[in-house]
């Protein structure tokens, strides 16, 4: 899941920042990618739309690198999946 997720995240960052996806490494930081606070807000919005997930403010504030976005999203998606599956007895 992570590789596919990382690729989708990179594609969204590339679109958001209007940069080539090849310039985005798995561990690139927001500073390296020139993602300022407003860009970050727009990125979170784009991620929410893409993955149909609500990213809480606290989680969004933790995003400082591509790796943190992928890890954070993975947790949120797993939690969403767990919440959607029938409760086990």
């Amino acid at each position, binding site marked *: 899941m992570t590789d596919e997720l990382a690729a989708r995240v990179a594609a969204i960052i590339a679109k958001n920042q*209007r940069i080539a996806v090849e310039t985005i490494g798995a561990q690139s930081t927001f500073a390296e990618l020139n993602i300022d606070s*407003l860009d970050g*807000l*727009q990125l*979170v*919005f784009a991620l*929410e*739309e893409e993955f149909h997930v609500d990213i809480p403010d606290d989680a969004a504030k933790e995003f400082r690198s591509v790796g943190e976005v992928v890890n954070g999203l993975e947790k949120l998606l797993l939690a969403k999946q767990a919440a959607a599956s029938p409760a086990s007895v």
Partner: protein
Amino acid sequence: MRRVAVTGVGVVSALGFDRESFWNGMADGRCGIETIDAVDCSDLKIRIGAEVKRFDPLMWLTAKEIGTMDRSTQFAMVAALEAVKDSGVEVAGERAAVVTGCSLGGKCTEDETYRGLYAEKRTRFEPMTIPRAMTNAGASCISMRHAITGPCYTVSTACASAAHAIGQAFWMVRSGLVDIALTGGNEAPFTLGMLRGWESLRVVSPEPCRPFSKNRKGLTLGEGAAMLVLEPLEAALARGAHVYAEIRGFGMTADAAHLTMPSADGAARAMRAALQDAGLSAERIGYINAHGTGTAANDVTETQAIRSVFALPPPVSSTKSMHGHALGAAGALEAVATVLALDRGVLPPTVNFVERDEQCDLDVIPNASRVLAVEAAISNSFAFGGLNAVLAFASDGATRV
């Protein structure tokens, strides 16, 4: 106090995206009013407007900038870029000001947001929704693009917004508070919500507006922006700049009477205040760019006001018949029309004029522009809420004498 020159103008309107297309459109008496494209009007009474069509902001702005700006702000930015380029002067720093007029703010952004909210039950919105919708976004984005760090603000007085803005910028340059100002107005009102609101006021004409003409049926909405560069006349002449006109006076009053019905007294007092501020007698005014909305009430009241100030009224025209009523930007479009009339020695017409109305017994320059060099002119703006602002200009020829 310093004398103040207009040395640059930029215009985005239904007549085009720059100064010359705006001027040539008016000089040719071209009406920019057509079927509205931005909104599906099949269910509306309002179907026509002076819309800015085929506008591609990428010609002036980056994709990133565009993403942070409502259509109204994009118009403001383009007009400001054109005005600065036209003036050939650097407008930047602490001694520079930006004062814009805008009545509605980012209505396109708001309308889209509310459609998502109420119609689609969306719960997530574009993070730039709030800053895009700010009424002062035009002034703020202009200050950022041009590194203008002095006074920067937006005046919102409905249809007099831009005239109030230009008047205040003029006073700041005249008094020496700043050495240069970028000022004007911007508006983009073509949204479903706005059109429904105007429809319910029953003042919008089903056909292109015919100001001062008998059996006129109301106003026609327009959109766009215009910006002017104001600088001390002495500085402009010293650097060999082209001076379109001198801005000489500004007058403002309130009717304190009715939210929508105009008052001849309030309008007349604003005209007198502008003339007094300009040090010009009424006889020296050779042209009036009227508020001239094309509503039954405005045009009669404005005629009475003009007649009370001018024993022998000069030629009067409403250029709204060509660029529409651009609300918060109207005073800026019309200030540019007025300074270009002084600069070119041609008075723009009132088009769509059919028949004289005895209650509007003025020379309204019907349907065709008139070659006539005049020494000075005023531009009237009268807003809902009973707010009146009048700007007085003098020709460069008069200025140099």
